């Protein structure tokens, strides 16, 4: 196993075709950060507990620390780097800026991607729905108050 070349995985990353070597046990968060240099996706725990590595796979929020790169074959992956279309920040990103939805910034990419997934599924969520959708993402700085306000604002209710 050690000397075998790693198989090439093909998927779409932020709208572009991507072909990248990854071993069977390689996790998507490792491929994004270490192989592709997409370091916007963060890792804050040892798997599944903090949400910092949330990305969208086929539009659904998933944790890159629990997803093997091999499973992404043929799928559409979106990360924080892909959210600003043509350099223009998305409404959610703008709302995080307007409402101070970020402090140290470390949980922010995962938080925004989790909120993005919610807004695609439910464009006008209640505060309760927002809090539930973000319950997989830990933030230690904000007490979540301004994050929730930002998502409400992005949904047009803020």
């Amino acid at each position: 196993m050690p000397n075998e070349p790693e198989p090439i995985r093909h998927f779409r990353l932020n709208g572009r075709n991507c072909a990248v070597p990854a071993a069977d046990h390689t996790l998507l968060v490792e491929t994004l950060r270490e192989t592709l240099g997409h370091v916007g996706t963060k890792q804050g725990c040892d798997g599944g507990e903090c949400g910092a590595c949330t990305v969208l796979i086929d539009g659904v929020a998933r944790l890159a620390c629990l997803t093997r790169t091999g499973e992404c074959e043929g799928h559409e992956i979106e990360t924080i780097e892909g959210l600003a279309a043509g350099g223009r920040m998305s409404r959610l990103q703008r709302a995080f800026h307007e409402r101070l939805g970020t402090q140290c910034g470390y949980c922010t990419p995962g938080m925004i991607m989790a909120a993005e997934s919610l807004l695609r599924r439910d464009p006008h969520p209640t505060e309760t729905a927002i809090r539930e959708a973000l319950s997989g993402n830990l933030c230690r700085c904000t007490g979540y108050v301004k994050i929730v306000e930002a998502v409400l604002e992005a949904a047009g209710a803020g």
Partner: protein
Amino acid sequence: MNAPFEGIGASMKRKEDLRFISGHGHYVDDINRPGQLYAYIKRSDRAHAELRGIDTAAAKASAGVVAVYTSADLTGIGGLPCGWQIHNKDGSPMAEPAHPVLASGKVRHVGDPVAVVIAETKQQAKDAAEKLVVDYKDLPAVATVTDAVKPGAAQVHEGAAGNVCYDWEIGDKGAVDAAFAKAAKTVKLDLTNNRLIPNAMEPRAAIGEYDPTTGEHTLYTTSQNPHVIRLLMGAFVLQIPEHKLRVVAPDVGGGFGSKIYHYAEEAIVTWASGKLAQPVKWAAERNESFMSDAHGRDHVSTAELALAADGTFLALRVKTLCNMGAYLSTFAPAVPTYLYATLLAGVYKTPAIYAEVKAVFTNTVPVDAYRGAGRPEASFLLERLVDVAARDTGMDRVEIRRKNFIPKDAFPYQTPVALQYDSGDYVSTLDAAMKHADWAGFPARRAAAKAKGKLRGIGMSTYLEACGIAPSKVVGSLGARAGLYEVANIRVHPTGSVTVFTGTHSHGQGHETTMAQLVSDQLGVPFSQVEVVHGDTSKIPFGMGTYGSRSLAVGGSAMVKAMDKIITKGRKIAAHLLEAAVEDVEFKDGKFTVAGTDRSKTLSEIALTAYVPHNYPIEELEPGLDETAFYDPKNFTYPGGCHVCEVEIDAETGVVSVVNFTAVDDVGRVVNPMIVEGQVQGGVAQGIGQALLENAVYDQDGQLLSGSFMDYTMPRADNLPNIKVGTETTLCTHNPLGVKGCGEVGAIGSPPAVINAVVDALSDYGVRHLDMPASPQKIWSIIQGAPRMAAE
């Protein structure tokens, strides 16, 4: 057209946000250096054991391994230094055992580093570390302060008899004893301040790099104070002179105190990268954070209050046992002494106070400052004690506070425990908080809750803290081995834009915005034309970093001082250009004007002249417009306020919900209200976490059981209320901005407010006190009168 208001008092949106919301934040683990190797730290899985040997052969032969080091390899390397020395009651210095970079002879806590493996990939390093064979001989371990001081307890260090690090006192014991002897009433309370794990969302990381052609070392590290790390590591551990050591702390993903300290991994990667002449990176896994980042709190106290018949406080007596963990972390000894016991006057004019603090070693992770640091322990003790005093004496909780407040005309106020408060108005924050929280309407809400079978309670804390740390002369006399001034360098560029270099460090606080507002306001330069640089010892002259809510009070004041120098020089240049006397030149709104005329020069014109000095008083003035100032504060600052918490308890399940939380704080002048609000909300969230959820659990053998986010419960989005924040302002009298600091107030004021509310909700059950966290099982046990409550 009026320019938009962007100076002091404007809720400017943050400059740093743009990179954070787009995924372009630049954190240590995002950095990769060419040819980089990876370090993995092998940590002790024993709480206490003799380290009889480490067989490294198999690890060294493992694929990709470049080096394996144990303590035997670290010749000529010093131990991790402690930056604060406390003296015992008898004047002798505290016990200060060695804190080796890699454990030597013994391991003393789970997580103690025993060896480092360096390999070409992270996985190879980790795989090889599995092949290290460590020969331990287990020793009995001790995990809690109460066990540590028992006769016959396992000894953590040979040089600390009875596990005592120091036995310290403050205040007038005689006066306190006398007051108790004649008091009409006395109240006594035993309480525990639960042990917490800071858990900034970014795990610690460090990269060492060495340039053999210049002999220069660079350390990228997750630090709140890169210059302090350079000083401590360079001078005490690795003997690298300052000019050959650069420390960079780029974007740092939260700190809350845990990233102040100099950690072993920083020294390991710096030393190893020099030895191997290749960059070496280490990044903590979360489980390592749990067992190697300094923990917080962990006090066991007895508090006694003596009162006159009318409820006037006469004296306070406190005895505290506090946990230092297995080694002394950088500032650990100062936390339960000068950041705790000196705060025991709180907002009250108690005339006599005496406190004894015994710090003890245990086989646990070192304990040091965590958001609030000492002050949350003091506010919890005092604000619980005041509520219990009200209950025991039949007084109203609010009235007993009002009666004993230091009145607003009593400042400066000298407390019996060393501090001198400069300003405050505790009635105004109390009144505002009660109004915003609708304290008066509570009985109706309680009745409504009762109708649906819920127990509703309301509680408050009227707290005070000391921050803006701190006057160097004072802290020096108290045992600090450093000065605590701050440094600013203000560079006005030839075209008038400004770069500010600050020795403080932002890891979420928004300094790039607040400090730019401050400079924009004072120099009259547009906000967009001011850039704040922090976190790199090669760019910034010096600095003591960010902790103790000091950045604006101390760092901002240094900026004011540097700007004063800029303006003084600018006036001279303007006087020359405008052919006026220097005394006649005024500076306002970015313009130098000859008084009483319309003749003026803008700051940009002055800057251009300073850098292109063709028409310039070159005989008496140097070219350039670039000034540095060191500011040493004259006193601490004293934010305070009132937090009101309202809870509902499901009596059948014991589950507590915080239904309302209102914080009204006096943080001095507010530069950016939105940022202050965010800081307070975040601090309150951590305080609610401490009060209801968080607890570091060790078993009796010193194994950390709460070692992941599933076992150590932090607040999530779906279990916190909206936190209402207000401010009432009195200005700090001794710094030029009148600012006090807002980073810690939330975590200091909130825990007692929450517990006071919980106890209030349980008033029908005869509950006098419960310790944090107020978990469902604890509440249930109280409601049931089960024996469990005594045990906790």
